[in-house]
């Protein structure tokens, strides 16, 4: 299992989702992706994208105008 991080700060939705999609495509099942963003919409959109693709959001929070999500890549659906 590997953990990578992805900087989506200053990107407006849906760009953070698109970046997550591209990053997940390079990862294997069980890998984790830490996502940093500033658009609060990412807090809804990234989990929604993960749900439809079978990936898990292990944690998500908003602090000081920043959004942080930890995604674990699922084994089923392709990115």
């Amino acid at each position: 299992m590997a953990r990578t991080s992805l900087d989506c700060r200053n990107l407006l939705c849906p760009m953070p989702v698109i970046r997550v999609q591209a990053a997940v495509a390079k990862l294997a099942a069980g890998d984790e992706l830490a996502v940093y963003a500033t658009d609060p919409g990412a807090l809804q959109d990234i989990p929604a994208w993960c749900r439809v693709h079978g990936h898990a959001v292990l944690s998500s929070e908003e602090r000081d105008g920043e959004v942080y999500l930890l995604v674990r890549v699922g084994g089923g659906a392709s990115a």
Partner: protein
Amino acid sequence: MTEQPKAVALISGGLDSMLAARVVQEQGVHVEGINFFTGFCVEGHTHAIRADKRAEERQGSGNNALWVAERLGIPLHIEDVVEEYKEVLTNPRHGYGANLNPCLDCKVFMVRKAREWMEAHGFDFIVTGEVVGQRPKSQRAKYLPVVSAESEAEDRLLRPLSARRLEPTLPERMGWVDRERLHGFHGRSRKPQMALAERLGIETWAQPAGGCCFLTDASYSAKLADLWRARGAKNYDLDDIMLLKVGRHLRPRPHLKLIIAREEGETRFLEGYRRRYPHLRTVSCGGPIALLDGTLEEGDLALAARLVARFSAGRNAESVELEAAEPDGAPQRLSVTPLAPQAVPAEWYIG
């Protein structure tokens, strides 16, 4: 084919594409969605500007396409086509609609991209929510055949909502879908879609008027046309077109435009651009932030400051103090008399 047939459905976030995907899904086809981000989509980034009430109310993503995909239970692939779309928008073969919306070229482009995706991923056909006779009269007859032909999707493009009015396509001839269970909707009435949604147990919601993107909006198109005119060229980047969605736009000089925030959310949004544009903000009273786009010639900064003061809480005051700053410079203070409303000609307002 013994395997389950696979279709890629264009998901715009509207009701028609959702119904079309559902109709083939109901026939046992494996469906995945594809959505294209052109930069002009109505949704998405807007929650960065103002609170997205609808997303809160309906719980889930503020992105319509993702919301639809969740309801359908299908994976959704969102493709960034911002760069490629520039050619579609600035040089449309079939011209523009009522505003700067190149709808026919746009549909051809998206179906072509979907076809490429289909081929790359071993899918069998493409599904769209297009309906016969839905477009303005002038384009009606040629519209759907042009999309099939120019996208080179040909008969792998199925429109489940109108299929029974069209020639049978490959998925119908191969028996991947049963033509009898497809529909024959036509024209601009929304009633058949509403009835079908109800029958399929799909909740309906308010659709953005006009279309799936800002280009159908007259005011937005006027701002885009103004941007191109001022630059002397039809070019743009993602920041340019995002900023056209925000604030009041005024052009007091051919070489200078002001983008003035109208409310707090817009102020926060425009503050994110302080490192890219010279800007002005009031300090002696409450007021908006304004970005200055263009060049500042003699007297322009004072004029811009008077204009910003006109939209501040100090609009009736003798003088208003403002701070002006270059993207990377220290702020400079200036004191001005706000412009009287009648001193702001209607032509300065864009859109």
